[in-house]
């Protein structure tokens, strides 16, 4: 960044006596706009299309396949439609808060990209409190959602906002406690530090490091889904009960912002899990060329993240919504005690084997493979029992 600004100044494009800070500010704005408009927002849009296609296949439907090749441009059509719509502010709404709320939600979606470890070199800022920063800024969502619910001056919105606040604040606790085991084992909060403590092979991932981290990974994933307002925890926007929850009064672009943030958050959820438990960008050292290695690492990281994004869509297509009391029961009676037990268990584990137990990794990985094989057998069983011709094409 600094070298870029100095190169720009030296080129003389901005005139002779331009202050350094001004050019730096322009560079920051332009670069962040490029990253968000070129990566984050298209990702959110494309995920909306992928998600609709995935659900459709789960429900034996086809999904949007008309706009562009296989419906790929559906997200652009939807986006243009929403942007062109009238921006309605209800008469009794609080106009300032009402207009501000979507920006806060989007803010909570774009800030985590600063510490997103795409590869060993591709990271905007390798903060030494990276994972803490990640959990902290994603929690800003609750302010935006609560603000939207309150400012809409609508009972549905208010109930949705309050539910969302209760849900996000509650699930922060098991999510935070599930990050603890990893921090205990690595002794660092930096994203790159956590990834470097793992290896490229699955048995060196923290997912399989010991039984406690395996449970922690699952709790973290479920809690992250709950924080992202995803089914089965989409109570704040429960369509059948609350119209659209906190987004009821919104229309056009502001409505789009909420959902863009929700879909974009999938990437952040996937990135947190991939970084903490799945070895992040770790790839076997096949080349000494840093460019080649960084591209391979980028691909590795994205494959892991996109797999987790797919799993969250799959979960959304599978599980029904839980009740609000079940949601709280799940959090406070199950996740919080188990997460505490995990933390203590990992602490004891680290006390016994400060360098980690290599045998445990292999055993855990073998157990994971056994579970995967059992799962695939069940899938084949259900596919055969359906008496339908099998059809392996992902698109139609």
């Amino acid at each position, binding site marked *: 960044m600094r070298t870029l600004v100095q190169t720009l100044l030296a080129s003389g494009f901005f005139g002779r006596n331009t202050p350094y800070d001004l050019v730096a500010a322009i560079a920051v704005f332009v670069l962040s706009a490029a990253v968000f408009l070129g990566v984050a927002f298209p990702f959110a849009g494309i995920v909306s299309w992928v998600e609709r296609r995935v659900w459709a296949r789960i429900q*034996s439907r086809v999904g949007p396949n008309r706009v562009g090749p296989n419906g790929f441009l559906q997200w652009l059509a939807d986006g243009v439609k929403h942007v062109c719509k009238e921006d309605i502010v209800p008469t009794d709404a609080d106009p300032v808060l009402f207009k501000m709320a979507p920006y806060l939600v989007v803010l909570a979606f774009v800030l985590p990209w600063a510490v997103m470890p795409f590869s060993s070199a591709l990271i905007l800022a390798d903060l030494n409190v990276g994972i803490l920063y990640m959990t902290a800024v994603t929690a800003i969502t609750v302010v935006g959602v609560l603000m939207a619910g309150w400012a809409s001056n609508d009972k549905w919105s208010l109930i949705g906002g309050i539910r969302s606040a209760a849900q996000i604040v509650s699930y922060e606790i098991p999510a935070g406690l599930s990050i603890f085991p990893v921090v205990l084992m690595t002794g660092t909060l930096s994203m790159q530090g956590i990834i470097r403590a793992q290896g490229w092979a699955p048995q060196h991932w923290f997912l399989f490091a010991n039984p406690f981290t395996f449970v922690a990974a699952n709790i973290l994933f479920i809690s992250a889904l709950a924080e992202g307002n995803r089914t089965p925890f989409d109570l704040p926007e429960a369509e059948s009960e609350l119209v659209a929850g906190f987004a009821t009064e919104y229309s056009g672009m502001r409505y789009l912002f909420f959902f863009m943030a929700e879909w974009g958050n999938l990437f952040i959820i996937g990135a947190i899990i991939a970084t903490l438990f799945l070895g992040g960008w770790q790839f076997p050292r096949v080349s000494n060329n840093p460019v080649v290695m960084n591209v391979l690492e980028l691909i590795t990281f994205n494959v892991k993240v996109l797999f987790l994004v797919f799993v969250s869509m799959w979960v959304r297509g*599978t*599980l029904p919504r839980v009740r609000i009391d079940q949601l709280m029961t799940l959090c406070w009676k199950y996740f919080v005690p188990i997460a505490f037990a995990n933390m203590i268990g990992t602490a004891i584990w680290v006390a016994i084997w400060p360098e980690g137990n290599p045998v445990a990794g292999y055993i855990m990985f073998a157990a994971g493979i056994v579970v995967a094989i059992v*799962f695939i057998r*069940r899938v084949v*069983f*259900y*596919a055969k029992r359906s008496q339908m011709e099998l*059809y392996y094409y992902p698109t139609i």
Partner: protein
Amino acid sequence: MGAIGSYVENIKDAVTTIFEGMAVTASHFVRKPYTVQYPDRTEVRVQDTLPFRYRGILEVDLEICTGCLACERACPIDCIVIAVEKDPATRGMIISQFDIDIAKCMFCGLCSEPCPTGSIHHTTEFEGADFSLESLIRRFVKEPIHAYKAKKGPETDPRLAPILSRGMHYLDQWAQPGGDKPAAGTEES
């Protein structure tokens, strides 16, 4: 079973049921979707898959229309308008107008039942959407035409014979619900 037992039981239930549920939905990824992508991505036209006796939009074979007005009289909502006049030269009938208002038609099939030759009949066509009511009126007579005069015995005109046999086949189908015996060929008038 105590509180601890039910607690562990709940966790076990949750894990196993989610495991099975995910397996069920995963099996759907390899199943073929049921969706029929009407209208443009079906293997055959939907119209061609419909049964013969499907009551679609009405059609008239003017070559075998006798101008008897039976359909006009049978129509309960007067959506058929026919004008016939005697041709003084040949003493035959001339049909100068045969309009069916598809916008009014309720597809009851009462007009095709009394038709002596099967001239007025339903097709399997059902896509009638248009931008104006006016264009929904089907005008079958472009210029006045001689009405068909049924002959005694089989139809000898090789041009009309297949049309008439088709109409008769249609009437047979109508008379015999569920039956599809071959066409009678002719009808004594």
